[in-house]
């Protein structure tokens, strides 16, 4: 039986009433008042992709400096800034904002079948705070105040004595900005997934992407505070002379590493879990069947969430920790391979018993299978303590984390982009250009980073701006630099493909891939009210298992921006919640918070005086503007009634 399109002819005028209620202001100032999740989600994706390109430019400059021994194209000071800002940009300004905030904020409300994300103003505030944090790091680089102590800035090198001036302060404040942004979005996404799901979408019928975004949000909530504590400690050490990391007066340099890596490892799983979410979604669609092993995959996602917090010391094996704790963390690091292995086998079984259509998104997912596997397995090698003593902080580790980050996050990201861009822009991407982009990127990536395995085995340490000819690393470094050319070409082909398809691409229609989740029930590009008729869900793949006359939700007011709140377990409708409308105040609060934080770099009183405008703008944001005479005293709750 063909997939039934929920053909509903709207009652008279419902569409334009909803359009008027959910309209977002236009124009220059309107841009800053927009609080709809599609706008904020696209902004997160576009801004983080721009910073991906900027980070890529820095990587190309680094590869150019390392192309041959004693090559003094770039001096040590600039090179240190390059690799620090490259690392910080790729992790804090691209990977997390793109994979967690970008895809999360755009796709989750659609998949839940609701009209906007929970707390839309907090969501908009998070975007502006993220942009200010990103600009802070990059303006710092242009003003030679770019951070230069590595993306994790170990103390005492990043401390007050060995990094004079304000370089580490800019880096530490950038961390605070991006973490506040991630925490804000985590609260929005968790509330949306737990409380705004369409009726009928019980926990057992939730799409895997929602499970993974939920687990990622909980990981963000427990991991990000750790890096905020440690970056604030570093900032206080540098500005008001606290002694957290001063070894002479009781401070401890390993405290910094423990606190940072307690955040560091969950961070890479915050990047990786959204990627496996995209893989599970795309594999099911292009194998034309339900995902194999829904329960094992969800269990392994939750297991990854917990285990992610128990492995951080494998970054510190070389610091000479006692043998007993090192072997515990080896065991934990090896155990965390199992959930990912379970997901790999379930994907393989899905394809084995499905009907594979190797369209563009699926091609990237196959790229993910081949590339991430090398990264994951070299991770197994790194988990064993004695082997880590040899390869820690060498180019072998650089190769490992590029295989797991580019393989584990970038390949699924491009797959996800080719999958969802028809929904975002309403136009299909060009297939041929997509394949050229894939093969260029795949060849260039392996050329650059597979050779780095051998550089690491031959003892080339990380973060060296040059090397002496006697080390005989020149040939491999030349090969690695050549690979960068292919990758850059691939990325340029992707950008051309995007703009060309946005202008003249084939119209995509609501469901170009015949996918099963709810976001494919909205027209593409979706209007600001997402669903004309709020859907109900009948199974794990909403559209595939929808009955011909699948019930819709009625009775949600169309004159005020109201959404249906359902309870967490079996998503029974509980009450109708009114969402705050567009407002300039989140943007103003972001500016006030930015001024306070940046001022605090230069004088400790900045926090005290800067807090006053923050309080004022927060009051402006949260002050109730009654526009709907909701009843004065809430009457007892009535059951949802079925009417024919």
């Amino acid at each position: 039986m063909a997939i039934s399109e929920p053909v509903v002819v709207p009652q008279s005028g419902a569409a334009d009433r909803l359009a008027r209620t959910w309209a977002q202001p236009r124009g220059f100032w309107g841009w800053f008042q927009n609080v709809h999740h599609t706008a904020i989600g696209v902004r997160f994706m576009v801004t983080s992709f721009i910073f991906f390109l900027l980070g890529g430019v820095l990587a190309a400059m680094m590869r150019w400096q390392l192309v041959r021994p004693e090559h003094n194209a770039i001096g040590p000071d600039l090179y240190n800034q390059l690799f620090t800002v490259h690392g910080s940009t790729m992790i804090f300004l691209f990977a997390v904002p793109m994979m967690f905030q970008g895809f999360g904020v755009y796709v989750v409300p659609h998949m839940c079948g609701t009209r906007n994300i929970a707390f839309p103003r907090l969501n908009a505030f998070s975007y502006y705070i993220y942009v200010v944090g990103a600009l802070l790091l990059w303006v710092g680089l242009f003003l030679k105040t770019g951070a230069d102590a590595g993306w994790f800035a170990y103390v005492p090198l990043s401390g007050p004595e060995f990094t004079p001036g304000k370089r580490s302060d800019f880096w530490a404040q950038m961390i605070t900005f991006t973490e506040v942004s991630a925490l804000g979005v985590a609260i929005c996404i968790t509330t949306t997934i737990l409380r705004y799901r369409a009726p009928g979408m019980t926990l057992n019928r939730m799409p895997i992407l929602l499970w993974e975004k939920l687990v990622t949000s909980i990981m963000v909530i427990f991991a990000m505070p750790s890096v905020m504590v440690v970056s604030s400690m570093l900032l206080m050490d540098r500005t008001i002379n606290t002694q957290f990391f001063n070894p002479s007066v009781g401070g401890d340099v390993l405290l910094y590493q423990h606190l940072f890596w307690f955040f560091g490892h969950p961070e890479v799983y915050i990047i990786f879990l959204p990627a496996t979410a995209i893989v599970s979604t795309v594999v099911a669609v292009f194998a034309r069947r339900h995902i194999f092993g829904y329960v094992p995959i969800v269990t392994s996602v939750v297991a990854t969430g917990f285990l992610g917090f128990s492995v951080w010391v494998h970054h510190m094996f070389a610091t000479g920790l006692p043998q007993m704790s090192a072997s515990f963390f080896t065991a934990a690091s090896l155990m965390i391979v199992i959930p990912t292995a379970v997901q790999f086998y379930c994907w393989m079984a899905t394809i084995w018993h499905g009907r594979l259509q190797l369209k563009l998104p699926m091609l990237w997912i196959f790229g993910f299978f081949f590339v991430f596997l090398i990264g994951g397995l070299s991770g197994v090698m790194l988990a064993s303590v004695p082997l880590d003593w040899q390869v820690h902080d060498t180019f072998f580790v650089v190769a490992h984390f590029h295989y797991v980050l580019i393989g584990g996050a970038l390949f699924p990201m491009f797959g996800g982009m080719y999958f969802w861009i028809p929904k975002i822009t309403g136009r299909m991407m060009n297939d041929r250009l997509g394949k050229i982009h894939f093969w260029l990127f795949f060849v260039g990536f392996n050329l650059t980073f597979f050779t780095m395995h051998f550089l690491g085995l031959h003892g080339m340490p990380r973060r060296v701006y040059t090397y002496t000819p006697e080390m005989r690393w020149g040939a491999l470094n030349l090969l690695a630099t050549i690979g960068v050319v292919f990758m850059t070409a691939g990325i340029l082909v992707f950008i051309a493909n995007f703009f060309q398809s946005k202008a003249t691409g084939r119209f995509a229609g609501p469901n170009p891939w015949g996918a099963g989740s709810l976001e494919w029930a909205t027209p593409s590009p979706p209007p600001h009210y997402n669903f004309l008729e709020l859907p109900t869900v009948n199974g794990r793949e909403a559209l595939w298992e929808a009955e011909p006359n699948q019930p819709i939700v009625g009775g949600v007011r169309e004159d005020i921006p109201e959404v249906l709140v359902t309870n967490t377990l079996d998503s029974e409708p509980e009450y109708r919640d009114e969402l705050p409308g567009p407002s300039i105040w989140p943007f103003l609060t972001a500016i006030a918070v930015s001024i306070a934080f940046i001022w605090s770099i230069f004088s400790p009183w900045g926090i005290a005086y800067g807090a006053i405008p923050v309080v004022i703008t927060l009051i402006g944001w949260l002050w109730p503007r009654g526009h709907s005479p909701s009843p004065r005293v809430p009457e007892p709750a009535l059951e949802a009634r079925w009417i024919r």
Partner: protein
Amino acid sequence: MDPIRERPVLDVSGLPTVMFGKANTTWLANLLYMMIEGTMFALVVASYFYLRTRSSSWPPGNLPPTLGWGITSGAIFLISLVPARYAQRVAPSGDRSKIRWGLLALAGVAVIAMVVRGFELANLNCRWNENAYASTVWALLGLHTGHLITEFIETVVILCVSFTDKMEGTRLADVAINSDYWYFVVVTAILSDFVIYGTTRFL
């Protein structure tokens, strides 16, 4: 094809537009925020005990903080539970005067708590830049003072809202959630007091 296909409709117009207690989405957001702040507290306390393992004597070369102010501050925070609980109980009833009195009492106790906290900070017997012990003690108390001040401001703001005509519907639920956050501030106050005053004397 007939123009309007009749679809079974799940009518939810009868449902309420505001819920109290655990069913409220803002309550969930407040819980998540408490998890974030709770993790920060836990990490600062963990750093405190980690640094303690690193030095032979604790507090290293300082007098422990004067116990008197610690006990006073702890007592005031425990007393503050009464107005907070009162405000939370009367919130659903929508009775304006009771809510105002509850919030006023809460704000008053918060002011006293801040004043006592000022004395507490003055009598820690250590400056934050002397050594790692002093830095972590000041960090822990500073973090909590930040929460105390933001919570005080939030209570005052809701108090002001209660004087306007918009004090109905979800704003009533906000009063209850504000008291929830106050319980969090009290719990972290007791915890910080125990860590700062207790470990240097009894453990």
